[in-house]
């Protein structure tokens, strides 16, 4: 891990899905899958992203790699801006218009002068926002991203490989698309990659359905490696595998990281595995980043109430330890990320919640060196100064 070199930096990343709008285009339902999260990954490290289903961790990974266009925020790769979102201006402009309508209601109709000045005021504002949107959009269009830099390993080994293509076709697809190699060199490269991930040359001509889950996941890893990426986003790569196979894949990922000097963004819900493989971990809840810390720090000393209960919920493979550990069993369930209420997303289930929590969004701040927490009362809860 190179602490002087930040490979990926995400600033205020947002991914909203506008799932319902009126005929006139006014957005009435917004699914805020990823809502304003920021983090960075050092070169050569493994950054774990954990959270329960529906917390937006997969969406976050897909937005970074460009499968989804980000609604707002910036993504920097190797200090170079690769993506900037402009869609959020739509919602901002809409909000401004709503605000104007509200204000107009308060003013009596006779007061035309005041109405006019207010309208003009807002018109200028909206025009400015529209201009901003245009320029951001132009900026985003002008940005270049090299698809070889970031690659992805997918969750389901059964749907991540095209059943109609041979293993060799699957692995070489990227090489052929970018014309990295030609002719026999492609074949050699495929063989080399297959052997790197622990498969045999003979496997190249077979179809995916002839392999077991673990072997398929290896093929998926070989496909990602074929592009010589710098960063690999691992989207729950082991959650569909058997326990005895999980360890094989995790060990291989560690070996490959050393061999090819890779950086991982490791997305998972299995906290113990994430803890094992990651150097630093980010905990997400309903589209928000709750806590970011080094994995040891996070496990020994979780500061956010959500992280605390999440960690205590994991049953350990050790009966004695289970008896001793105190479970913090959360009440209720994850609420919907559609049109979320203002304030801390966790407030409804948090036992420390106070009035402020359901009114003001907490900002993520550095409580200790490299330990970031988004909670209003983090100091009070943990007796910190």
């Amino acid at each position, binding site marked *: 891990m190179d602490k002087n070199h930040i490979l990926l930096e995400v600033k205020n990343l947002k991914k909203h899905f506008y799932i319902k709008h009126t005929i006139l285009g006014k957005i009435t339902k917004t699914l805020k899958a990823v809502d304003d999260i920021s983090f960075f990954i050092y070169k050569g490290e493994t950054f774990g992203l954990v959270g329960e289903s529906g917390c937006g961790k997969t969406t976050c990974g897909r937005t970074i790699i460009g499968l989804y266009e980000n609604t707002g925020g910036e993504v920097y790769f190797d200090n170079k801006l690769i993506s900037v979102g402009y869609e959020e201006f739509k919602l901002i402009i809409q909000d401004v218009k709503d605000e104007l309508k509200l204000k107009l209601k308060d003013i009596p109709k006779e007061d035309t002068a005041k109405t006019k000045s207010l309208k003009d005021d807002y018109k200028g504002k909206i025009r400015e926002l529209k201009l901003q949107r245009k320029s951001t959009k132009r900026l985003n269009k002008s940005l270049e991203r090299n698809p070889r830099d970031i690659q992805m390993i997918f969750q389901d080994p059964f749907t991540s490989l095209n059943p109609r293509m041979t293993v060799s076709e699957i692995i070489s697809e990227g090489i052929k698309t970018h014309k990295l190699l030609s002719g026999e060199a492609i074949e050699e490269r495929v063989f080399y990659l297959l052997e790197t991930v622990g498969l045999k040359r003979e496997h190249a001509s077979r179809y995916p359905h002839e392999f*077991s889950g673990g072997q398929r996941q290896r093929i998926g890893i070989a496909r990602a490696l074929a592009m010589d990426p710098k960063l690999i986003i691992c989207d729950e790569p082991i959650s569909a595998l058997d*326990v*005895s196979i999980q360890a094989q894949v995790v060990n291989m990922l560690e070996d490959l990281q050393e061999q090819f000097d890779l950086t991982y963004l490791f997305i998972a*819900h299995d906290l113990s595995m994430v803890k094992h493989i990651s150097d630093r971990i980010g905990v997400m809840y309903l589209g928000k980043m709750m806590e970011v810390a080094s994995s040891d720090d996070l496990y*020994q000393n979780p500061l956010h109430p959500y992280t605390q209960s999440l960690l205590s*919920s994991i049953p350990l*493979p*050790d009966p004695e330890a289970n008896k001793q550990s105190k479970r913090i069993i959360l009440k209720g369930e994850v609420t919907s990320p559609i049109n979320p209420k203002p304030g801390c997303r966790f407030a409804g289930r948090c036992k420390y919640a106070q009035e402020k929590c359901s009114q003001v969004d907490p900002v993520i701040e550095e409580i200790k060196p490299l330990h970031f927490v988004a909670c209003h009362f983090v100091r009070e809860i943990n007796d910190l100064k």
Partner: protein
Amino acid sequence: MSNNILEVKNLKTSFFTHLGEVQAVRGISYELKKGGILGIVGESGSGKSVSSLSIMRLVDDPGRIVEGEIIFDGVDLVKLSEKEIQDYRGKELAMIFQDPMTSLNPVFTIKNQMMEVILRHMHITKEKALEEVNSLDETIKEYEKTLKDKEKSIDKKNNKGKASLEAKLTKIIKKRDKVLKDIENGITRKYNKAEALERAIHYLKIVGIPEPETRINEYPHQFSGGMRQRALVAMALACEPKLIIADEPTTALDVTIQAQILDLLKKVKKELDTTIIFITHDLGVIAELCQEVIVMYGGMIMEKGTVDDIFYSPQHPYTKGLHQSVPKDVVGQKKRLVPITGSPPDLLNPPKGCPFSPRCKYAMQICIEEPAPLFKISDTQVSSCWLQHEYSPDVEGFKKTGGVNNG
């Protein structure tokens, strides 16, 4: 009779596909005492789910129970007809499935689905039946009294309803006699709708569903994942079955919800004293919940023992391998995991000997020729590994025994 609620003897279940016979369960035997939670742990294809579906007799075509006995409460379930087993399912045996969405019917309300089971299976208790007899007796007395009054009275007008009253009286007496006779034979009447509803609500309350009186009228999709799983648990409990089989009930849930459900199952076990078979692939859940554990691999039992046996002194290389595959919660220096090489056996053409032998570090000639019997390690623990045989070389961490456990 022993106090074993369930005895599985040499159970073999296969699926006959176009490719050949897939031997999902290959001769497993175990017994289960009343009360307590038995955990069955294994990977996909280890036969853990099929073995429990066999107990419920829910193995569908092309699958079939090939051999073996499943003695439940003194009755061999394998020999029962389809109709007879239906009286057991839901009543004596209940099952909780992995996916709470697909195991509830989306077009019926929770109320419909819970009441259906209760109305089908539940009979009122003897005490309650006797109570009802008593109340019948009282009405009979009342009738007799009015009848006497009428006979006494001279007024002929009052005598008019005498015949119908007498008929009513004989009817009630007949009814009472029948109920009394049924009680003697151990039969009581089934629940009526009001009682069933009351019972359903009662159990929804037990599993922690808020406002069960109103929520019972909702459809499954109106419940969240965790709530659905709770409702399923309530449904399974509603007829007070002697055995509940839970097939990976928490796998589809998030950790925080899983913690809630595990907590619930513990509470249920403590309060209602039900026997539970809990199937999972997660060693952590096993350690948290179970008292006894069976480790399955390739359709066979590898090791069986108490939780402490399995977690603190595992005697089978597979169990050891599983423990090493899971990261232990140690802080500081990263310790490398020790994976089990290779992949699980193809049950279409399983290894002749020990199913684990192709992946086993300690594989011997005998291992690939013959599956090991269950060697007795201690009073509570048995393990199916040739390393326990007296002839085998000494390996650190593995005990040896002379005797073979046949029971």
